[in-house]
């Protein structure tokens, strides 16, 4: 019974923790411009992150090492160093976007300007990282994030033309008013939003935080394979709400305030309150994860003590890294940079950086010296190789498409 409850909690946390500011913004933008013609990318991204998270969790549980410890061992310090710089910077960009997302969500509830909320949000995230147990932190934000299911409820309440939505999703075409370049640029953005590297850093490091062993592989697999697809459904629901309400009115999403309007239209003030709680929880949870990931990546690469399971005094450089990362994120946001634009860039750069973490994990997941009998099976490897091609193509195409489309404008 206790085990069953643990599995249920894990699944619910995976669903609620799946969405972050990148998913919220990218899916809403895509829905308002392309309808559901890019819903297939969410499916591809969800399968990809399930595969990636499952591999990295298994690697951490069996080898006893987290992502960057392995990357340095496997690739050598020079290559891994370049990998670290790129991954750390993109993680920092994502952290900035998430803290900005918290401030924007709090603005919705209070009408107080986001710049006043930014330092508060940064401090709150750091305090929670500093003082709260890992499992409490993960479970509370994950469970509160479940309130974003209100987007799925809103889709039904809006009474859409299901045939039209179905046709968009099942027979995707490039809309006449958008070019092929924009279509594929946003496909890469959606893919990057679903497969953000920090999720893997956090997942594998979390496996070490919670001292997973080979016995925990089955449970983590269930959490990922059940939880993440449901999270993907919520992503599509966000896009569907935007497609139903904004697409016919030629409204292009460019702010968080727009994203919640379909929920208000569908369910009134109660639904709106629920969705704001969900957005705060999702962005706060993601800020915790990206904040921790900044510490994990640097500490694991340099071999410093790391982990919330250690007292801060025993992992001083780990905690100092997170403090500096948070200060940089807050500092950038205080220059009045638009957090939505930061988010849009962060998801695309996540897609660009994905091969850097995916390939080492794939190599190690196939290495019997690390994995013993828990190496990838044939089916997993076949799928993993397909995704390697997809990830590399997306990574190479992202910057040219960004230039050609003016970052999607």
């Amino acid at each position, binding site marked *: 019974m206790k085990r069953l409850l643990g599995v249920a909690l894990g699944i619910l946390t995976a669903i609620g923790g799946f969405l972050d500011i990148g998913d919220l913004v990218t899916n809403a933008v895509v829905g308002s411009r392309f309808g559901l013609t890019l819903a297939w990318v969410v499916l591809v991204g969800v399968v990809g992150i399930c595969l990636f998270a499952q591999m990295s969790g298994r690697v951490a549980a069996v080898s006893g090492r987290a992502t960057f410890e392995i990357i340095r061992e496997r690739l050598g310090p020079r290559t891994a160093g370049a990998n670290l710089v790129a991954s750390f910077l993109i993680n920092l960009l994502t952290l900035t976007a998430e803290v900005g997302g918290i401030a924007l969500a709090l*603005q*919705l*509830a*209070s*009408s107080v300007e986001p710049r006043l909320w930014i330092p508060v949000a940064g401090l709150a995230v750091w305090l929670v990282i500093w003082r709260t147990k890992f499992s409490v932190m993960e479970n509370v934000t994950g469970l509160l994030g479940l309130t974003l299911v209100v987007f799925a409820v809103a889709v039904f309440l809006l009474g859409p033309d299901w045939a039209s939505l179905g046709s968009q999703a099942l027979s995707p075409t490039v809309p006449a*008013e958008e070019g092929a370049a924009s279509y594929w640029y946003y496909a890469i953005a959606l893919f990057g939003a679903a497969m953000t590297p920090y999720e893997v850093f956090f997942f594998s490091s979390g496996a070490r935080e919670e001292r997973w062993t080979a016995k925990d592989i089955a449970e983590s697999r269930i959490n990922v394979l059940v939880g993440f697809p449901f999270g993907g459904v919520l992503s599509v629901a966000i896009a569907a709400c935007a497609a139903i*309400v904004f697409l016919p*009115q*030629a*409204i*292009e999403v*460019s*702010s968080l*305030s*727009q994203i*919640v*309007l379909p929920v*208000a*239209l569908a369910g*009134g*003030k109660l639904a*709106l309150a629920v969705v*704001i709680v969900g957005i705060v929880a999702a962005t706060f949870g993601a800020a915790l994860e990206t904040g921790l990931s900044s510490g994990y990546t640097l500490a694991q690469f340099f071999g410093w003590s790391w982990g919330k399971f250690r007292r801060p005094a025993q992992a001083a450089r780990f905690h100092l890294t997170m403090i500096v990362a948070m200060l940089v994120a807050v500092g950038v946001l205080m220059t009045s940079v638009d957090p939505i634009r930061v988010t849009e860039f962060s998801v695309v750069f996540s897609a660009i950086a994905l091969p850097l973490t995916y390939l080492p994990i794939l190599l190690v997941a196939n290495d019997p010296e690390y994995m013993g009998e828990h190496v990838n099976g044939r089916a997993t490897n076949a799928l993993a190789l397909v995704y390697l091609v997809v990830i590399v193509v997306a990574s190479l195409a992202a910057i040219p498409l960004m230039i050609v489309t003016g970052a999607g*404008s």
Partner: protein
Amino acid sequence: MLRTRVVPALAALALVSGCAVGSSSAPTSDAATLGGAVAEATSAVETTRLAARLLRTDRAPATVVDTAIDDSVHVLADASFAISTLVPGGPRGAAWRDEALDAVSEATVAVTRARDWANGVGDGARVRGDLDASAQRLDDLGSELDAAAGR
């Protein structure tokens, strides 16, 4: 010897001159650029109309509506900047630019008044009328520009 220096220098001068006088473009390009800015403005006005409707029907509180309209004001400012910094390629482009600037200014007034109304100042019926008129004007102009741009 002089020619080998003069030609590259003239080429460089021509290139820099193009940058110095700002962007200039053919009518189709003018229409496409202006159409993009007008589309942004249309999006801002439609968002404001939706937000105002939600407040009127008590489906959203004033805090959320105020934030949504504030964001729309910023979008209109961006659209206005894009239009006012365009150097048109000819008289037709100049006429479109002036019309677009006027339409976006009208939209800005309507959206600003809507924000006042959301915060308890102003007449709701007048705000609705202003927004509807602005939306129609932007829609008409947007269609004209799209047709000229060949979309």
